């Protein structure tokens, strides 16, 4: 770089990333009195302009399919500006014979702008699962260490749910749940017959006004982004209070390239690319909080090589990039004739499921370790692109028969998705690709990913369970998966569930872990990682709530250390 602009100002903390982990850090640290700079690789978000709340498909000329129909393949063009599997100019690679899909967001708020708002606590056993079954590793902290921070996060962001005393799914601080939809009542009835636990879901959506935010208006469109901020996103719920302190400097279009260290190995600055001017700049800070998303954070650490840290920053253990996991995902759907008789009615509800099935077979011996939960949806949703592809494939034909069939079948499908725990394995990790750089000259990640029989057997169990539920409802299970092939039992490719975690895991032993129980690097005392990277296990609970609880705990610890003069 010919010229590096150096900001003369020294911040207390530089936070890299504005999603769940970075947002919590920004709120807690600025409210604690620290001056923070936050680097976000994407632009700012403008809800009233960017979000398509209350739009009908016919309000858009492409009806949700996107230009050339390209959005119909994946997420629809209605969704909040959130990210993509592929970003122009910023590639990643998979090692030969491996397939890993990496979803990245480049926007203030990161992936919290569009996530499913499923806010589940990890259970006490999830922190000590090696002790139980000998696989993976235990966490250096326990549920009791994190529980007060789950309380704080839930109380602040707002999560609905019910107290159920299910040991695999601890209760939290809950707002009242919304009433169940018809589809949910029917599934619940079937689950009762099958002895599968089916309870109100836990979503970060307000059913009551809290902290000055409006309650949900039940349009069912959380994924599009909520103009009233009635669901949780970092951009609307965490960044604003941090900005209000006057102590947060938010720098957008800033792609972190390297964390710099002094001769004693203390982190002292972040070098970043200012995308607008295509120039390199620096932020000087007394402490660094990395929350760029698990793999992006690993990439940044691995790319931050120095004489003190030749293998990458905070990587004396060699664990950075290792222990990568995603959730086990497999899905299916059924046709439920009983729903044909439902009169037209408003079925929208919140932007997610009102009920779900937590892991229920924790009290018996199974064919696989750990467990999964089941999410489901369907019914009389707003019609959209691709809604009748399945019917057309199956029934074919044309004309009035087709039209009448669509009327009859509309609202009668229920889809199920299992989300299970993957055990870390030595064939699954990310590393720096030795040849490829992105358009900013930053070496990119190369992924290795393999499912083991543990995960495949879990996917098999999911398929059998979905089928049993549908058939108990008197319906027909429509999904057929094969035992062999690339994706047995419908298991999704690695990364596809967007729960990738573990790439800078915490641990009691600095030889096998990157961080201590406060998300603080063993090797670099003023460096913290507070996204999905610190997670030691990836239980069936979606990781976002735990990321926020860990970040809150780490931020309070950092505040305390700063007050003591240790940072």
């Amino acid at each position: 770089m010919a010229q590096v602009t150096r900001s003369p100002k020294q911040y207390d903390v530089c936070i890299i990333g504005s999603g769940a982990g970075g947002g919590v850090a920004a709120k807690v640290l600025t409210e604690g009195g620290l001056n923070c700079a936050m680097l976000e690789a994407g632009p700012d978000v403008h809800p009233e302009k960017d979000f398509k709340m209350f739009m009908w498909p016919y309000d858009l000329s492409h009806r949700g399919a996107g230009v050339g129909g390209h959005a119909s393949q994946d997420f629809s063009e209605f969704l909040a500006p959130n990210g993509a599997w592929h970003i122009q100019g910023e590639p990643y690679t998979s090692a030969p014979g491996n397939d890993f899909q990496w979803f990245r967001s480049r926007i203030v708020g990161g992936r919290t702008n569009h996530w499913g708002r499923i806010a589940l606590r990890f259970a006490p056993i999830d922190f000590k699962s090696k002790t139980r079954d000998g696989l993976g590793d235990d966490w250096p902290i326990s549920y009791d260490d994190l529980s007060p921070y789950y309380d704080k996060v839930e109380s602040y962001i707002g999560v609905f749910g019910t107290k159920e005393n299910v040991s695999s799914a601890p209760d939290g601080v809950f707002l009242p749940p919304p009433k169940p939809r018809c589809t949910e009542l029917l599934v619940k009835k079937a689950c009762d017959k099958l002895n599968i636990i089916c309870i109100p879901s836990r979503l970060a959506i307000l059913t009551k006004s809290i902290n000055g935010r409006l309650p949900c208006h039940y349009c069912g469109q959380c994924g599009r982004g909520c103009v009233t901020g009635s669901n949780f996103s970092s951009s609307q719920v965490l960044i604003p209070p941090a900005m209000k302190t006057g102590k947060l400097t938010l720098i957008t279009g800033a792609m972190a390239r390297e964390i710099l260290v002094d001769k004693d190995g203390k982190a002292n600055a972040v070098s970043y690319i200012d995308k607008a001017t295509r120039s390199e700049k620096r932020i000087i800070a007394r402490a660094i909080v990395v929350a760029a998303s698990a793999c992006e954070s690993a990439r940044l650490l691995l790319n931050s090589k120095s004489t003190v840290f030749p293998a990458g920053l905070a990587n004396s253990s060699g664990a950075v990039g290792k222990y990568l996991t995603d959730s086990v995902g497999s899905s299916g759907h059924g046709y439920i004739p009983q729903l044909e008789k439902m009169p037209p009615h408003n079925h929208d509800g919140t932007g997610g499921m009102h009920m779900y099935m937590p892991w229920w077979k924790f009290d018996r011996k199974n064919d696989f370790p750990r467990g999964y939960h089941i999410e489901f949806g369907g019914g009389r949703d707003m019609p959209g692109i691709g809604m009748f592809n399945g019917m057309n494939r199956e029934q074919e034909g044309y004309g009035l028969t087709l039209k009448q069939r669509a009327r009859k079948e509309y609202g009668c499908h229920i889809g199920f998705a299992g989300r299970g725990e993957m055990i870390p394995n030595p064939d699954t990790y990310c590393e720096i690709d030795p040849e490829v750089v992105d358009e900013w000259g930053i070496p990119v990640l190369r992924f290795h990913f393999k499912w083991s029989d543990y995960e495949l057997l879990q996917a098999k169990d999911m398929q059998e369970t979905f089928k049993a539920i549908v058939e108990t409802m008197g319906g027909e299970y429509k999904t057929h998966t094969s035992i062999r092939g690339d994706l047995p039992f419908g298991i999704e490719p690695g990364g596809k569930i967007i729960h990738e975690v573990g790439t800078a895991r915490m641990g009691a032993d600095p030889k096998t872990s990157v961080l201590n129980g406060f998300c603080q690097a063993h090797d670099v005392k003023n460096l913290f990682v507070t996204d999905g990277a610190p997670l030691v296990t990836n239980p069936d609970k979606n990781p976002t709530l735990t990321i926020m609880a860990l970040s809150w705990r780490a931020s309070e610890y950092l505040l305390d250390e700063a007050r003591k003069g240790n940072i």
Partner: protein
Amino acid sequence: MANQSISRRDILRTLAVGAAGSVLQVIPAKAAAYAHQMVHKEKAASPTGNYTPKYFSATQYATLVALCDLIIPKDEKSGGAVEAGAPEFIDLLTSENEKYQLRLGGGIFWLDGYSTDHYGKRFVDCTAEQKKEVLDLIAFRKNAKQDTALSQGVSFFSFLRNMTCDGYYTSKIGIADLGYIGNTSLREFPGCPPLPE
């Protein structure tokens, strides 16, 4: 179009500002309904009769319209795919996607070739009975298994059927036909009406 989106944004902005002012206030459904009316007014004001296709030739477009009308016709309850704007939607997406151009543009050529071979005229010029004969063949995969000469036609029709459904069931007419109720602001979610046994 500019007016329409500004109006909607203005309303949403007003709602968002109102949100900060009074925590107990919910979005007035009336304001949302007003935004939609604005959109429809603008739509109604635009000329629809003399649509100029973006991709298809005039004759190909006439064939597309005929096919859409056969796939989802109007009946006593609601209008059909043509009235719902499915041909315009398909033409727009096709103009932007080379794969669609091959499948649909090429498919219509295939259909005209088939019609000419069997009836001595293009598909649009065929009688209603002749059109039905052709569609009764290419609307079902099993016919391609019996007569492989039909397989390209079956593949084309299957693709077009999906796109026609996409166009129809994302239109105001199609959404109403299904009886979808929602996309509005509610103070409480009412839950499920009594389940029929």
